[in-house]
């Protein structure tokens, strides 16, 4: 008996010692775990709190050091801060990793000791006296059903709430948001240089015929355009876009048509600014922002003489930008953009014909990816292309030296060409009365007809005019009369109907049409003429708009002074005229 008790007490004592040791280890490792966890949390929050503060400091110091590049002390502070930030990050990573391992080890020790202590204190099972087993089992089931029902009700009501939460309805039927505007939409807006088809004809007759820049009569608003340029404004809906640039920056500005507020401006990086080799364009050239942008209401695309082209959506987000390399153009690249369906069409003429550097390019309006590209052996030109519908077929017509070429805008395939033009081309073509009119500066006006011959389309010069040929402005026609405006103020009118051909003078193969009338206006004009109903709107470089009747004789209606120099052609919208002066954009409309 004694030995038994002695044995029991010995093993009992051992168990006690072990138990106490286990508990103590558990407590110690538990405390250790808590310490590690708090250290890890501290480490984590240090990262969250300290790092942003250091980052702020870093940004500040970086800009400072850039402004003061010679300051050695600032430089060393910047470098020290950078080292500190990097060391912090590495240390934080190391600490958390080490902490993780310590945590794991501590947890293992903690669990082992805790479980060991539980095991050591394990008692023999001693089931309690059973009372009313029957009732117990029945009650368990009842409670089980109730609890299950509660869980189901909770889940069900949550799902019920979810079911009645509003959800965005993308539409039972997918609404067809056209990827590109319809011809109607284009006709109602002023999406490109000289409006739809580059014709310079306003769709609205309700624009004012009187305004005054000095008194502000009929000037709805006037907003400063931050960067200069000769590009014309383009209008779509409630926005008007103007591009401007200088040797350092190239931007497009978006103004609100109602208030004239600058809604946003988008920049394209000027490679000259990056490389330190800016494009130098002096006064003899077309300037840094000569090409006019094009918009389809959803996006606006603009190109600059540096070869940078960029596209922004109507909210100002840059969709894409590309660079085709610096165009080799002695006056600075100036061709405006055209669009067709969901494509941007670029007339990229440069160098000499034999260099084979010129091409016409079609880009996807949304992504900027090249849809097609056609090389052409022409020299550089400063005309803008047009897309017009001839005989139920859309044609993309370009004037260049020496050819006038028509392409299929969908594929870039050449449809026809006529050799007639020469160097220094600036006036763009128009399409009127079934004829394409192209101008060779100071030399001739060509009326070109294209017709289908078998599988091909051929083009021929039907007649030409020799009077009052401009060198900058593009022609204007109402379908019966065609008007030319020279830089020095000579307005010449031709009758382009077929009936007028009996007055033509035939000289060898050439048919030369005399002018109908001519008028000296004693002003300089860079902006092309525009037509509103039966009225001509002629904008001189001094900012004076001469309004005259477009008829078989000249009749002036009025003159409106803006008080600012203007080189860009105006844009027309419903009840409004947008004129870009050298500094401001004016919105002219009836103020009542």
């Amino acid at each position, binding site marked *: 008996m004694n030995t038994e008790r002695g044995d029991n007490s010995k093993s009992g004592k051992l168990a006690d010692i072990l138990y106490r040791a286990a508990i103590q280890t558990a407590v110690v490792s538990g405390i250790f775990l808590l310490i590690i966890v708090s250290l890890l949390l501290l480490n984590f929050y240090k990262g969250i709190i300290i790092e942003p503060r250091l980052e702020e400091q870093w940004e500040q110091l970086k800009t400072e050091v850039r402004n003061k590049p010679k300051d050695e002390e600032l430089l060393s502070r910047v470098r020290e801060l950078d080292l500190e930030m990097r060391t912090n990050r590495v240390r934080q990573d190391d600490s958390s990793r080490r902490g993780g391992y310590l945590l794991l080890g501590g947890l293992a020790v903690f669990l082992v000791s805790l479980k060991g202590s539980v095991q050591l204190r394990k008692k023999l099972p001693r089931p309690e006296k059973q009372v009313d087993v029957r009732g117990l089992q029945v009650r*368990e089931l009842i409670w*089980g059903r109730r609890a299950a029902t509660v869980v189901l009700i909770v*889940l*069900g009501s949550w799902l019920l709430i979810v079911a009645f939460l509003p959800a*965005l309805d993308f539409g039972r039927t997918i609404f*067809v948001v056209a990827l590109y505007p319809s011809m109607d939409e284009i006709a109602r807006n002023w999406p490109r240089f000289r409006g739809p088809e580059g014709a310079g004809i306003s769709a609205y007759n309700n624009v004012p015929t009187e305004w005054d820049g000095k008194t502000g009569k009929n000037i709805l608003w006037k907003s400063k355009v931050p960067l200069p340029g000769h590009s014309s404004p383009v209008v779509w809906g409630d926005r008007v876009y103007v591009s401007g640039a200088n040797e350092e920056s190239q931007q497009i500005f978006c103004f609100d048509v109602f208030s004239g507020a600058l809604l946003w401006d988008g920049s394209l990086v000027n490679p000259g600014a990056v490389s330190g080799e800016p494009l130098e364009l002096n006064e003899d050239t077309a300037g840094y922002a000569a090409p006019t942008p094009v918009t389809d209401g959803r996006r606006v695309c603009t190109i600059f003489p540096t070869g940078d082209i960029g596209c922004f959506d109507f909210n100002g987000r840059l969709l894409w930008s590309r660079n085709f390399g610096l165009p080799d153009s002695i006056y600075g690249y100036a061709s405006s953009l055209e669009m067709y369906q969901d494509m941007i069409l670029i007339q990229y003429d440069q160098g000499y014909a034999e260099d084979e550097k010129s091409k016409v390019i079609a880009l996807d309006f949304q992504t900027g990816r090249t849809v097609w590209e056609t090389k052409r052996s022409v020299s550089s030109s400063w005309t803008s292309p047009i897309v017009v519908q001839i005989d139920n077929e859309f044609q993309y017509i370009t004037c260049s030296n020496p050819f006038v070429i028509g392409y299929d805008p969908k594929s870039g395939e050449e449809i026809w060409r006529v050799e007639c033009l020469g160097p220094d081309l600036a006036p763009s073509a128009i399409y009127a009365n079934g004829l394409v009119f192209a101008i060779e500066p100071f030399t001739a006006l060509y009326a070109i007809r294209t017709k289908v011959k078998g599988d091909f389309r051929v083009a021929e010069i039907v007649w030409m005019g020799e009077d009052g040929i401009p060198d900058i402005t593009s022609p204007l026609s109402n379908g019966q009369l065609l008007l030319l405006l020279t830089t020095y103020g000579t307005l010449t009118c031709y009758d382009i109907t077929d009936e007028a051909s009996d007055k033509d003078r035939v000289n060898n193969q050439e048919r030369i049409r005399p002018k109908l009338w001519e008028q000296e206006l004693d002003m300089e004009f860079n902006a092309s003429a525009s037509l509103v109903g039966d009225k001509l709107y002629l904008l001189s470089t001094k900012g004076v708009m001469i309004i005259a009747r477009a008829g078989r004789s000249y009749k002036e209606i009025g003159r409106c002074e803006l008080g600012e120099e203007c080189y860009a052609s105006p844009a027309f919208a419903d009840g409004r005229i947008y004129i870009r002066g050298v500094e401001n954009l004016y919105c002219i409309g009836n103020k009542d």
Partner: protein
Amino acid sequence: MRQLRSIVILLVLPLIVTTDSFGAERFPPPDFESGHELPVTTVPSPRQSFYEYIDLGVLVAAIGVASYLALRRRSRRGLFVLTVFSLLYFGFWRKGCICPIGAIQNITMSIFDSSYAAPLFVLGFFLVPLVSTLFFGRTFCAAVCPLGAVQDLVLVRPVSVPGWLEKSLRLLAYVYLGAAVLFAATGSAFIICRYDPFVSIFRLSGNLSVLILAGCFLLAGMFIGRPYCRFLCPYGVILRQLSRISRFRVTITPDDCIHCRLCEDACPFGAIKKPTVEWPAKSYSKNKRLLGLLIVALPVFVLAGGWLGGSAKHIAAKVNWRVRLAERIYLEDRGQVEGTTDASDAFRATGEDVNELYSEAYAIRRKLGIGGWIVGGFLGLVAGLKLVGLSIRKNRVDYEADAGECLSCGRCFSYCPREHARLERMRQEAS
């Protein structure tokens, strides 16, 4: 320096004119005069697929050993050692991925998504524990599953969960399974992987909320036995049903039950069921009426569940990133939300048609609607059957480990005097 830079740019610009495809280099790669050789971009290869099949082999072997230890040898100690091994191998070495629980999603996606094909070993990971459970009961859960292993080893002081609470909380596992299958079938998300509480322990890293979740589960697991296994594991839902019809199963006693009651509190997971007693006549007839009502009401449960599941499709769809993108673009274009996100900017830059995105989102919603009806109906059926089960008197004569609940851990063996008798007999035979 500036001169060199400008020379480079001027030399390079004419070249740019001739190259114009979108991806071509702005600055053409140079031809080095010194004959400098370009270094090669290193491509360290991933773990060879061959090793995944080794893992599958280890899985098969481990399940085999676990089944042997649980059913034949009846050795709790052996199972404990195997549990530690599984934790170390499948947990810390393989970082808990890929696991049979997550494999449910891969298999579902394989079936419903034509663009995804699960690797063969994933199919193996999915099927092997199911087949073994069909034969041997939940021996996979006992000592092989790494998530189970963590919870098992963390268990210190089991608190018994009252039976009614246990039965009702178990419904959550069905919801988890249904949601996991639904989201995997539509390619929206792998929610089992996303909300796995223990994988962050195996990786020893994760973001703060995941680590806190792991901590909570560990803490809970110290007192509640295997909370994830019992109330949340979606794979366990399937294993439970298969285990109920398994060929062989763990029994508490090696031979006969002598009704000594010593094993009543042996199971930390509440899987030991007591013998049933005759009910009083009143509750018997009441329950019969209730049972009849519930069986008639089953279609109502199914329809209600289906409708609720189907109508949750708008919210469920938000889990899918394409739907979230479509909703964001929709709101931005209508000016109902300010600014843009990286995702909407990236989408607009691709030039994809917005209408196609909308129809894609619409199609996902529709799929989730149909799937929601099916899963909801299934959950309704489960709920109805659970209530039916809670109205039936089960006839049990001996103390048994519940066919579906028992995790084959073997803790109850040492509580049974018949087991001790068997061990004594084996010892005597050995000597």
